[in-house]
């Protein structure tokens, strides 16, 4: 797809994400203004059947949870300062098993940092955002097409797993306009909640083999629904630490861990010679630099592979498996210390693991090329 043909338009990631959310079955959007999610909010107001502004980010996610409990799949967007305020409610929605989609548009921190400077600084926070060591699924967008496809998959995951999910992106991805062949965008299916169809008493948190309980809205007139944020049993009744309540809590962990494979997305650009020497691992906005770097490295005779991680949390064993095959692994991410590298390797980074990090500006293809060439020299 090199030639510009007749189906191109100038578009931005924010527009693609919002249109994809709606076509994928999200009906409501609650927002609070924050840079760099401004365009997302603007488009959402124009597009969602239900859209409203809340007075702060805590209210945003509480309202979103209420809408979701009533069976209306809801999304929002924010950036770190807003997400920090949402954190308790993210835990609530995880415990209540309410599908929510949070588009997290990263900007440079710490704190309020620089609102109009992009970054990839929130992955570590997302990995630990649920008290007790659980994960919510986090999906990452690597280009404009992902703004469409991965967004849709994130909605599907939220709905099928009955969980809040984070769609991770950053300023440069959603506030840059670009030409795009819109005919390359596949048709999307709207995700639908699996409703309880039994005849007996409905236990709000009784799950079958797929570990996600069937849903009923709190507006239904057939069965009583009990939704609970505190430790609860299968009926949704508050329990301190009873055996069945603990089993229910642990099910939440298993649900995500066991079923994330259904929503595993990554792009592996394997080096043609299959040497397994150098692998560049990346996600989000740095993916675009890695794509250029990999092409240039290959044209100059350096053999590299590139892994673009899109289902980023929980870290899937398949991702580790790919990484382990390589002699050198370069993690390219726009933050100070290498968050994905740390999540995978902890503090035990070894000499085969290199980090390419930067703050304040996007990592350039040239910076990646330089590191890869140094690995090649050691390798030779």
């Amino acid at each position, binding site marked *: 797809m*090199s030639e*510009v*043909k*007749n189906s*191109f*338009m*100038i578009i931005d990631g924010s527009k693609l994400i*919002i249109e994809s959310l709606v076509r994928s079955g999200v009906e*409501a959007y*609650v927002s609070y203004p924050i840079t760099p999610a401004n365009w997302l909010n603007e*488009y959402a107001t124009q*597009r*969602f*059947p*239900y859209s409203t502004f809340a*007075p702060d980010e*805590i*209210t945003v996610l*509480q*309202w979103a*949870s*209420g*809408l*979701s*409990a*009533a*069976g*209306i799949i809801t999304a929002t967007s924010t950036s770190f300062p807003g997400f920090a305020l949402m954190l*308790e*409610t993210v835990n*609530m929605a995880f415990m*209540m098993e309410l599908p929510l989609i949070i588009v997290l548009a990263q900007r440079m921190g710490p704190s309020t940092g620089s*609102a*109009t400077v992009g970054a990839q600084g929130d992955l570590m926070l997302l990995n630990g955002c649920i008290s007790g060591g659980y994960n919510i699924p986090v999906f990452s967008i690597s280009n404009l097409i992902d703004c469409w496809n991965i967004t849709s998959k994130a909605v599907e995951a939220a709905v099928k797993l009955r969980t809040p999910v984070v769609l991770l992106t950053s300023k*440069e991805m959603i*506030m*840059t*306009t*670009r*030409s795009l062949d*819109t005919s390359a965008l596949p048709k999307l299916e709207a995700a639908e909640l699996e409703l309880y169809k039994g005849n007996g008493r409905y236990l709000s948190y009784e799950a079958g083999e797929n570990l996600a309980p069937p849903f009923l809205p*709190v*507006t*239904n*007139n*057939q069965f*009583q*629904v*009990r*939704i*609970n*944020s505190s430790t*609860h049993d299968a009926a*949704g*009744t*508050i329990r301190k630490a009873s055996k069945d309540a603990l089993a229910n809590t642990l099910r939440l962990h298993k649900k995500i861990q066991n079923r994330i494979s259904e929503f595993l997305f990554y792009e592996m650009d394997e080096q043609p010679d299959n040497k397994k020497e150098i692998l560049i691992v990346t996600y989000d906005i740095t993916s*675009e*630099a890695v*794509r250029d770097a990999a092409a240039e490295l290959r044209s100059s005779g350096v053999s590299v592979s590139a892994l673009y991680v899109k289902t980023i949390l929980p870290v899937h064993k398949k991702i580790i498996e790919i990484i382990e095959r390589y002699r050198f692994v370069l993690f390219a991410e726009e933050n100070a210390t290498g968050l994905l590298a740390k999540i995978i390797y902890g503090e035990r980074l070894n000499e085969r693991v290199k980090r390419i990090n930067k703050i304040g500006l996007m990592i*350039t293809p040239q910076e990646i090329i330089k590191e890869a060439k140094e690995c090649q020299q050691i390798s030779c």
Partner: protein
Amino acid sequence: MSTNFLLSKETPYCPGCGHQTATLSLANVLEKLNYDPLDVIVVSDIGCCGLIDPTLACHTVHGLHGRATALAAGISLAIEDKKKKVIAIQGDGGATIGIAHLMEAARRNINLTLIILNNMIYGMTGGQLSGLSHNKFRSEKLQFDENEEPFDITELSTKAGASYASRIIGKGDFSDKLAEAIKHDGFSVVEVLEVCPSYGVKKYSEIENYGYTEKKFITRREPYYLKRKIKKTLFDESEIVFPEFSSNIENKLKIIIAGSAGEGVQTSADLLAKASLYAGLHVTKKGDYPITVGSGFSIAEVILSKFPINFTGIHKPDVLIITSLDGLNMVRDKIGADMLVIIDKSISALVEKERIEFDFRLTAGKKGATIGAIAFWLIQSKIFSIDALIKAAGESKHGKKVIDSILKIRNSFSKELIY
């Protein structure tokens, strides 16, 4: 005792707890008003008041400390069926921490009833005082300064826009006093003053001694409903561009346009992007400007290429177009060798490196200077036809004015000037 709404005579409260009376009164009023339990959704807070859930036969939602009003508001926003009833239950502690949620529900007059069970104490954590504790009340653990007046939640809610607010002294069955609030369309708040035999006020007479009296405020106001509206797709087919021109570029071309905010820099760069698409090129465009938007610099970065573009950053531009001093100050350190610098004549002397200068501001005015400079560059470089830019401009909001600026520039420089 109600049979429809209470699942059991057993309740989880301490003997003599005000919440016991409140639970029975709530169940009674819902039954008296003939509600189907599955038309009622009770959203409870953290604290002793949140123990109500398991006693009820209606839908129950047990949320976070202080957030019950917001969560209930979210549920209410989803409901258009007027037979449904959403009720939030909070304690005085929850109402204090979540007071902003309460104010917003009142401001919008969101259709739900909030019952605040005010026993003047955080019971579950051992008896701390809240923003609704009376200043004469003394907790065994903490003491208020007499000057720390409590919120009057009924007056506060009314001032914030709640269409119904009342205070009830929660002695005996008060279901009849609740009925009006439950039936109310819009946001209704009921503060119930209660005893807490473990930590709080032990007798209702003591509450009355503090000077509390029952009261009620009713304001006629339409409730807020979030209505479902089907809206159009964001994909406007008319935005699809059919390439009509050709381009002679071979390599990726990186352009930085630097000017002043409010002078059409971003719009001009958008038009260049669209014109490039008309010329069959792939394009990316991004903007950078201060958060004030309307003052200071405005920078746009545009990349053009025959091939799809991945990385959208510009480390070193091939073309630098500068139309104001604000813009020059932002990009001065980017000026280097092997790049084409096109600059407004008024600031040209401030640059030492090789550059092409022209009176963009004088010729096309400050708002036309940037599009004029882009036109100037296109005509000189022959990257693609200026007609592509004119076509893109013609489709823009202020098409005529923009085309005027382009034509002014085109007509006013001599072709001999070209390189």
